[in-house]
């Protein structure tokens, strides 16, 4: 019984982090029709910013917004410099379908190498603000800790905040309109380019939070090749795809589902399967529903 609860809690927490990553990927996809394979790399970079901030300010609570702002600014920079050029130059021919994929893959490599050159390959310690020791519950120690609780609360708050932004504000309307029908948006007076950059910036901030939490929830260290971030890269992407790439809700559902399923597979089946499990789950979902859980058939064609 205890193991079941523990597994569920582990799954829910890592699922929350994957949801954040998936939200970032869906934000970029919805606003610019690009799958940003470099999203996890950008999250890692933002986490390094956070690492520097922790060292400088000696506070995780300051470091988190620093990471978010740094992540947002970097993402905005990439959108302005790289993505706009991409649309201009590689819009036709056989390369058009794969150009954004390839460009973001290249970006991932550049970011990774850049991080390694700037900070070196060794592990850097990131200390969380609250302990990751489990709560005691009737004599047993649960895996659930203040840290995990914090992660869950933060994700829920961010999710609510983003939903309100998108559904209830004019800015959100502009974001959605620019994603669905850029020309109509332009004719309504929306500066679509700026809105797209904003989409990337929001994604960068969300990714930063995911990165910071992935670090403190996992090994507590970051490095250019850390397994935690390879896992974040794959799982974030798979969570987004499972969720259907259509909505933030789908991203969260995909993330939570993936997190919980992986946790159960790792603990009840075999702990070495942490790279195969996401793949198998992805195949299973796409086999039953190729458009993802909340995706619609029409949109899948894009």
């Amino acid at each position, binding site marked *: 019984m205890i193991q079941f609860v523990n597994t569920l809690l582990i799954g829910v927490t890592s699922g929350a982090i994957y949801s954040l990553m998936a939200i970032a990927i869906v934000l970029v996809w919805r606003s610019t029709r690009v799958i940003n394979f470099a999203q996890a790399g950008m999250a890692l970079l933002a986490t390094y910013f956070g690492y520097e901030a922790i060292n400088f300010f000696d506070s995780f609570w300051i470091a988190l917004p620093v990471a978010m702002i740094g992540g947002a600014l970097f993402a905005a920079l990439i959108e302005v410099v790289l993505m706009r050029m991409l649309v201009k130059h590689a819009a036709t021919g056989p390369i058009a379908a794969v150009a954004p994929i390839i460009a973001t893959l290249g970006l991932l490599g550049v970011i990774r190498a850049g991080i390694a050159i700037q900070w070196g390959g060794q592990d850097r310690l990131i200390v969380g603000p609250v302990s990751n020791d489990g709560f005691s519950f009737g004599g047993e120690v649960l895996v659930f800790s203040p840290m995990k609780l914090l992660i869950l609360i933060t994700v829920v708050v961010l999710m609510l905040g983003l939903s309100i932004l998108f559904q209830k504000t*004019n800015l959100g*309307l*502009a974001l*959605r*309109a620019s994603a*669905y*029908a850029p*020309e*109509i*948006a*332009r*004719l*309504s*007076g*929306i*500066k679509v380019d700026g809105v797209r950059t904003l989409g990337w910036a929001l994604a960068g901030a969300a990714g930063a939070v995911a990165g910071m939490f992935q670090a403190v929830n996992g090994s507590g260290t970051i490095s250019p090749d850390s397994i935690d971030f390879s896992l974040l890269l794959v799982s974030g992407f798979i969570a987004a795809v499972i969720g259907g790439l259509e909505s933030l809700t789908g991203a969260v559902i995909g993330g939570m589902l993936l997190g919980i399923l992986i946790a159960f597979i790792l603990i009840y089946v075999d702990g070495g399967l942490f790279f195969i499990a996401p793949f198998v789950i992805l195949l299973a979902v796409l086999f039953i529903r190729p458009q993802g859980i909340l995706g619609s058939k029409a949109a899948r064609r894009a």
Partner: protein
Amino acid sequence: MSLNVSNLTVNHGAICAVNQVSLAVPTGKLAAIIGSNGAGKTTLLRALSGLNKPATGNVMWMGENITGMKPEKLVRMGVSHVSEGKSVIAELSVKENLELGAIWRRNKKEAAQSIDQVVSIFPRLGERIQQRADTLSGGERQMLAIGRAIMAKPALLLLDEPSLGLAPLVIEQIFQSIRDLTNSMRITVLLVEQNAVGALKIADLGIVLNLGKVVAVNHAQALMDDPAVRAAYLGY
């Protein structure tokens, strides 16, 4: 003359879609631009609203040179363009589509009043105000598209083939609504249409475009009576 176009040339790839077009539309009048497929009508509108950049020529609106200005800016100057195909955003609700039209407007209270105004012109939109736009019929979508343009408080309204794909009764309704709002809102309207009869019936001015050039300009009634125009475009 509030709208003055002189020697406008717009290229569409390698093709010269609009070739040295000059026209003038008085304030508050409805000008119908007719011509067959490929005549350059759509490209002309897109150049006026800023979506396409003209190669040469001038566009003057209310005394200001608006040639080559971007749509984002032109909307704020009162130029509203309803592009061809029922240009509504399917995933948004009717209300959100309308709100989109007014999104740049500073005065939110006035914008809310505009929704009431649109609903009074197109009551069917009021009935479906919370529904998703893709649940609307073709005619309703066209009304929504025009409604969205009205939400921007336009002084110049550019309509690209609003009758396309609609049933005859619905077309009549929409044309009548266009005439009504030209009168009541006192806006200048450019109506591009392949449905030459319907368009000329409600227009003050008629302009015939062929292969990118203006081949005839006259009062709408005069064009309808012109035997050459009748033979070529009106079918009788």
